């Protein structure tokens, strides 16, 4: 899962990014409106955390422009908690709204819900034959036994599982699992895929040569 954070307060931006990375997300950051919009338009994020008050271009403007081209779920982050501000945010195309100061756990839960809704899932649990994925607890059961996965491996499993039945290209996987700071070592993805197959069974992820990966 790859997330963009647009926030101008450096300390807040840094700790948010750190916390989300530790949750297993790939995180990109922008500290002003123009950069934020540039990033948001240039990449398919799974979700965007967007502050309202930003230098150069405010959150409303970014949202308005972004909605012309992309449907990326957006979570607005703002200090304004009057209902007319919330209404305005939701009407402009925001998918959810968190008022500062917030609890990290609430923000995470809202982000998970946002990503889940976007993938048309209604619960946190995805069942794929023997494999059961709990996206809230971030753990995976194989034949009712918990499986130890690294954060990156879990992200890979979750992303392919959310796109069940579709072919997920390697480029897509790179975009969603790695942030802009990580050099895309092409065999890193293969390593993760092979590790997952070892833990969950070889037939869990099928390879479509020349296209990508898929879960039937």
């Amino acid at each position: 899962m790859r997330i963009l954070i647009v926030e101008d307060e450096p300390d807040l931006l840094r700790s948010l990014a750190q916390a989300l990375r530790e949750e297993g997300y790939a995180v990109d950051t922008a500290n002003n409106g123009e950069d934020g919009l540039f990033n948001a338009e240039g990449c398919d994020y799974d979700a965007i955390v967007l502050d309202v008050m930003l230098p150069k271009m405010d959150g409303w403007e970014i949202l308005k422009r972004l909605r012309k081209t992309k449907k990326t779920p957006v979570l607005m982050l703002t200090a304004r908690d009057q209902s007319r501000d919330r209404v305005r945010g939701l009407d402009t195309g925001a998918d959810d709204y968190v008022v500062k100061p917030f609890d990290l756990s609430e923000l995470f839960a809202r982000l998970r819900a946002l990503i889940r809704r976007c993938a048309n899932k209604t619960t946190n649990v995805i069942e794929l034959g023997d494999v059961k994925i709990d996206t809230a607890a971030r753990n995976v059961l194989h034949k009712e036994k918990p499986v130890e996965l690294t954060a990156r491996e879990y992200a890979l499993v979750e992303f392919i599982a959310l796109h069940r039945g579709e072919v997920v290209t390697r480029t897509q996987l790179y975009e969603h699992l790695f942030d802009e700071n990580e050099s895309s070592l092409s065999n890193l993805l293969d390593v993760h895929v092979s590790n997952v197959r070892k833990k969950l069974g070889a037939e869990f992820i099928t390879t479509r040569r020349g296209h990508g990966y898929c879960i039937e």
Partner: protein
Amino acid sequence: MKIFKSIKWRLQIWYGLILVVMLAGFGFTAYQLERGRVFGRIDDELHRRVGVLANALRRPPPRGQIGNGQPFDRPPPGQFPDNGPLGQNPRPPREFHLPPEDAHFFDTNDPNEFYYSISAGYGKIVWHSDNDPNYDIKFLLAMSVNGSLKLTHREIVNVLPSGEAIRVGCSIKPELHELKITALKLASFGGIILFIGLAGGWWLVARAIKPVEDISATAVKISAGDLSQRINVAEAESELGKLASVLNSTFARLDAAFAQQKQFASDAAHELRTPVSVMLTQTQTALNRERSPAEYRETLEACQRAAQRMRKLIGTLLELARLDAGQEQMRQLKFDLSQTARSCVELVRPIADEHGIKIHCELSTVDCVGDSERLAQVITNLLTNAIQYNKPGGEIRIAAQSRDGTAILTLSDTGVGIPAEDLPHVFKRFYRGDKSRTGGNTGLGLAISKAIVEAHGGAIEVSSEEDAGATFTVRLPVTS
């Protein structure tokens, strides 16, 4: 009683009382006039008949005008307290005949017509007409009679110089009846007028009180917290219309002041949200798992920065609140404004040098009275703004001079300037040209500067052209 506290009722009661007094006065006068007219007519008739009788007695008429006695009223016969026969055998009456040409003055058979008696000294009646009901009473003249007696006859007694007394009287029953009807008519007429008057008065009072009731209804709504209510001013020129306009403008100012306070409180809360979110996110992230000492240090430093920002904001807010409440007393000491400006320039020069900005001073001695420390705060604030919004390698010009009893301090920079749409708002609280929260600005610096300058009785203004820098002008009165 509630009724007596209502202006409407009090007005109505006073009005009713005045109306009653006036109607009663009018009615009484009218009644008295009518009564005078009726009795005057009877009295004329009585006098005339006295003259006729005197002529008949072949005596000279009474000296002076006809009749020297005053007419008086008498109760019906038999009702005198000591009524009774004279107790003396009257002498056989002397033959008395009315001359035939005068007979029509007395119809002696009709008890309601005029009657007469003639006595010859000492009250002895020598002749009386047949219809005289009172011929046998003791007292010919008026006497003090018991007031409860109903007077039904009017008589006149004239004593002739020769000693005979002529008494002429008549029944006044029809006249009394007529007067009674007149009185009833007057009373009912007065009653109708009183009723119409009271009804009209009530309508007038209600009409006059209506705007007051409107005003009080609106005031009640406003005191209940709805400050957007206004009194409907229909007649702006009337006394109450003017009052309503004055009240409306007062309400409008109250409303604006309340809105400003609300906005200020919400802005202040809003400003505190960001540092609080920083602290929350930082600490929650750090506590998620074991961290290295360096990471903990980083977290603590971020928290410290956030806390310092909050401290600065709280201090500024308190200062503004004190300035607003007028609690901040400005010292009234003599000082040289240019000296103060110079020390401020020295204070910020290291920061200016860091940004490669030159500061030019054109400071001539200006003696001012006020709080030099607080004004130094204003100048420092303007200088830091000028540095912050300047271009690298830019310039700042600061000048102080005295003109027409006003100390003028101007400060211009060569920075990015202020867009025209922001210009009217720069002194507003929490107003920032760009909407970001960065740079450690509270957004209150210019608002505080304005409050301090105004507390000195001065004014601060700004002019700017985009990309050509901004000029701030501070005017202070020079009081000697």
